[in-house]
């Protein structure tokens, strides 16, 4: 890992995004922002997987982490939709209670 490669640069970027997202999710007070922070966190984790799958050319990358991340992206969008439905419902209940 002494050489500066694409994998090093983007792996570190992925770690940074993971940390930023995790800290944001723990500290957010707004539900929508907490959800976006969790999304950032998941993209950061996927980033590290993709960086780990990278191989110096001419070798091709490991396809298994790629497939895992594609599955992860679709699972994340499902979880996001469910979370947004809950956020909308909570908002409706709260505004009704305030009236």
């Amino acid at each position, binding site marked *: 890992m002494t050489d500066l490669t694409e994998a090093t640069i983007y792996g570190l*970027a992925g770690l940074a995004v993971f940390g930023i997202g995790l800290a944001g999710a*723990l*500290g957010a007070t707004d539900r929508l922002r907490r959800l976006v*922070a969790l999304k950032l966190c998941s993209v950061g984790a996927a980033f590290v997987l993709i960086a780990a*799958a*990278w191989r110096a050319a001419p070798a091709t990358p490991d396809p298994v982490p790629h*497939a895992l991340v594609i599955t992860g992206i679709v699972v994340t969008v499902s979880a996001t939709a*469910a979370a947004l439905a809950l956020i909308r419902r909570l908002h409706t209940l709260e505004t009704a209670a305030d009236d």
Partner: protein
Amino acid sequence: MTALADNPLLAFDLLLALAIAGLAVAALTVRDAFAMIVAFLVFGTLVALAWVRLVAPDVALAEVAVGAGVTGALLLRALAHLRGGSLSGRAAAPRAAAPTPAGTLGVNAVLAALATLALGLAWLGTSPGATGLETPVAAAMGQSGVEHAVTAVLLNFRAYDTLMEMVVLLAAVIVVWQVERGAADAPRPAMGEIYQGFARVALPVAVVAGGYLLWIGAEAPGGAFQAGAVLAAVALLILMSRIYRPRAAHRLVLRGGFVAGAAVFAVVALAVSGAGRVAFEYPPAHAKTLILLIEAVVTISIAATLAALFYGREPLSAAVPSSANRGKAQ
């Protein structure tokens, strides 16, 4: 810094990595929620570009279509709901949350840093010459039925994961329909007349693009998930331009669409078993046909599911006022 001299593109990589980290910070610090979502969309697009640089075009396609595109649409739709039907202006002020104590913030930061450090150690601790599963995958490609390694992993070698993924999508639609059942009817997002013209031009192109992505997935980057997301975008355009309005009578067809992907997948997996084969062990002679059949149905299912997740509540008959729905749901 000899690496930079050898490979000038690394300078681009450095800038892109900085932009990605900067956008992540921006998304969490910008005050306005609309600006937060826009920053997140740009973030997702740049992440996809970074993944192209890491030779992961399939994942980049999925990220830009699902991770940024569909997720962005879901977030904007939720924001419009929270703001009473429009994206501008402020949200109906949520109850002022008490400011988080500094001690809690500090503990949070330390815990987040520790978790990140653990992930970093796991990644950096791998020996540089280590290989993953690319060699076994390359050795088995001949029996997979397709020429593209990622599609082979998704639909053949690790098809069980992909089946479960379809089940997760199905579960999400069930959750959203149940949660929204008692909710007040939100204003439906709609597009202006200019966008209706755009929809007429864009729809045929998007349908062709989706079909192409599905077909090409057998031998090049692409496949069911990317095609499904493109077709979901078609469905979103149709919904927002009011060309199609979901009605209660269509629920049976819609439910069929949601279930079809997981159902066909599972039936094929079980049908090929027997005579010494286990589930998911496609006969090599028919593997490509079976994989394309599964992918085609899965694509339609994904498109229908993602569109339903965007639309939100289950289409109930218009004659029933929402208060009656609420009573029925409880």
